[in-house]
């Protein structure tokens, strides 16, 4: 018989090892899946994990792309992870991302065609405020009426998508767009464009913000009393209350912060790589960031690495589709496996496996 025995404390060893184990298991099982699809498994795995970094034809282009793809994931995931540590489940980062993009792009487009250095900073602030405001809705409802923030924040994603459809075919529609939905392209509007700071490095302001957020979160969680309160509220709510932590404040802080970071991510994306507010502007970053947050163990440095890994599977997955003809759905399945194996191997972190006749727990 095999028994699971709960560890008195989560194992530090397994905390560090499970993400790596999950990646390896994903490679093995994913390899079997690719083989079952009639594609060379080793080549597929190599295309996904190796080629974006080192392939002589693609790497020069795809390495910077890793940063562009990982930037918003990391920025959003950092915000989410702080809330998750406090036991506040913001599932609606996608909606906050959309609203940040709309608010920020709206400010930029309002100035069009004026050129001024002040426009872009204003857009960033508007983007953060847009996401913050969207995050405050579940926060206020939770503190005032005790609603469930998981449901409210998730439902607000669909509201945000409707707002997005409405503004891209109405308020923010490009007047020179021949009646088609979609805003002006911000990439072609110098004062509002979020361009690469150093050409061909992928480093735009959103990536910089993501790195700053990583450092900020690290300091908050390890050096600041607010960070201690957040973790206390998550691990021992009653103890936190005795220690004078006010839950309402933590809720407002966590949802507001994660909303603001998601909103900024949306703004950097719409002003940079994406360029336009369109009906399908959002491409799931807000949901993928949840995976990134957990893959990174809710730790800032872990999230940084997880964001880059996730970006690698996206870009490598695209290459695998293109070069090997793998179906798009198999790549999504592959990414899903990553989270599945992470959660599955997580059992080793909290439990010890004991073989033979164990005593009753």
């Amino acid at each position, binding site marked *: 018989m095999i028994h699971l025995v709960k560890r008195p404390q989560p194992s530090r060893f397994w905390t560090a090892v499970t993400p790596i184990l999950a990646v390896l298991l994903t490679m093995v099982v994913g390899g079997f899946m690719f083989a079952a699809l009639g594609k060379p498994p080793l080549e597929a795995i190599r295309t996904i994990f190796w080629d974006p970094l080192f392939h002589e034809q693609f790497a020069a282009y795809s390495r910077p792309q890793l940063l*562009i793809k990982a930037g918003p994931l990391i920025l959003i995931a950092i915000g989410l992870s702080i809330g998750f540590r406090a036991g506040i489940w913001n599932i609606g980062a996608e909606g906050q991302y959309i609203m940040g993009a709309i608010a920020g792009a709206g400010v930029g487009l309002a100035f069009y065609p004026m050129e001024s250095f002040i426009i872009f900073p204003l857009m960033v602030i508007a983007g953060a405020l847009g996401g913050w405001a969207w995050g405050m809705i579940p926060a206020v409802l939770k503190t005032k009426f005790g609603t469930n923030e998981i449901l409210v924040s998730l439902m607000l994603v669909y509201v945000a998508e409707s707002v997005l459809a409405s503004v891209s075919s109405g308020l923010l529609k490009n007047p020179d767009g021949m009646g088609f939905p979609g805003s002006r392209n911000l990439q072609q509007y110098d004062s509002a464009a979020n361009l690469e700071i150093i050409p061909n490095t992928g480093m735009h302001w959103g990536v910089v913000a993501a790195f700053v957020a990583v450092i900020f979160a690290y300091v908050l969680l390890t050096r600041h009393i607010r960070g201690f309160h957040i973790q206390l509220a998550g691990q021992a709510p009653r103890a936190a209350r005795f220690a004078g932590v006010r839950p309402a404040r933590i809720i407002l802080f966590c949802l507001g912060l994660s909303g603001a970071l998601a909103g900024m991510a949306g703004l950097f994306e719409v002003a940079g790589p994406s360029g336009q507010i369109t009906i399908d502007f959002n491409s799931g970053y807000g949901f993928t960031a949840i995976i990134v947050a957990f893959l990174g163990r809710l730790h800032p440095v872990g999230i940084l690495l997880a964001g880059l890994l996730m970006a690698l599977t996206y870009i490598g997955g695209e290459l695998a589709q293109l070069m090997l003809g793998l179906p798009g759905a198999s790549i999504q399945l592959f990414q899903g496996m990553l989270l599945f194996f992470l959660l599955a191997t997580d059992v080793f972190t909290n439990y010890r496996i004991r073989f033979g006749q164990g005593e009753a727990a």
Partner: protein
Amino acid sequence: MKRRTLLASAAFAATLGTAALAQDTTKACFVYVGPIGDGGWTYQHHQGALAVKEAYGDKVEIAWQESVPEGADAERVLTQMALSGCDIIFTTSFGYMDATNSVAAKFPNIKFEHSTGYKREHPNVSTYNARFYEGRAVVGHIAGKMTQTNKIGYIASFPIPEVIMGINSYYHHAKKVNPDVELVVTWAYTWFDPAKEADAARAMLDQGVDVITAHTDSTAPLAEIAKQDGKAWGFGQASDMATFMTNDDGTPGPRVASIIDEWSPYYVKRVGALMDGTYEQVDSWAGMPEGEVVIGEMNDAIPADVKAEAQAMIDAITAGEYHPFTGPINKADGSPWLAEGETASDGDLLGMGFYIEGITAEIPN
């Protein structure tokens, strides 16, 4: 030997930073907005891609990527395609317009073909679309003849010229054969969302509409119409949707005909032109004469005389003898648009922002 030349040319391509991998095969690449199994828009484009392979065999190589989101991801996918050695890249959704043009600027030796857009900012960007309003004319005629309640419906996607053109063409030809006909337009604000499309169809059926055409791509409206047990009818959109042509008991199904997007002739022609050196930048807008808009088989729910009339219209459009927008046609506000015998210019159609006389609905802003 073969392996070695391949490696050598790969190294050559890498040093040049361009994409010419092998000179003897032409690589045609396709970017799709949906999965190739969507049974509609993307499925039809992929059929066109397969037709290219079929036509030229070993002389071409095709590659594609499905479910590519519009925006930043599209730009990366296009760049990777260009780096991987594609000689011609077809981007098959309107939302790829800006990405197509910005990647085309970086790869002047690769040809880019953007579907349904209007921006050709560089000499290596062509655009192509099909005259779907020709198909709408035929189904409009059928709808006007078949409606019992004199109410026909149109599930519209977005208020853009393409869709408004379709609505006008559909209504104009229904009205021609049935002066009492009334048009109901429902805006779904989506190209593909089975749940929303089904809701739109149900709402129309509840209002007494009994013939519905859709400008959205799923089969959900037909599934909804099927529940009316032969009291309402619809059309296949983008692809044939032939599964709804006949019911299980052999009686005619709810799909009486269909408008099929047939991209194969265009794709085969363009890749061929690239191979034999006659390729030029174009803004292509072809229709029934070129075989790009096809009416799928009409089922027996349509009376024989109506079938014959519809076929006559198809023949006339195909022969270039009939233009679906031939005057006299007035705008919805009563002002004249086309005089007797005058046909609409392409410019008028591509910027169409008004309904024709008789449509009482408003175009949403």
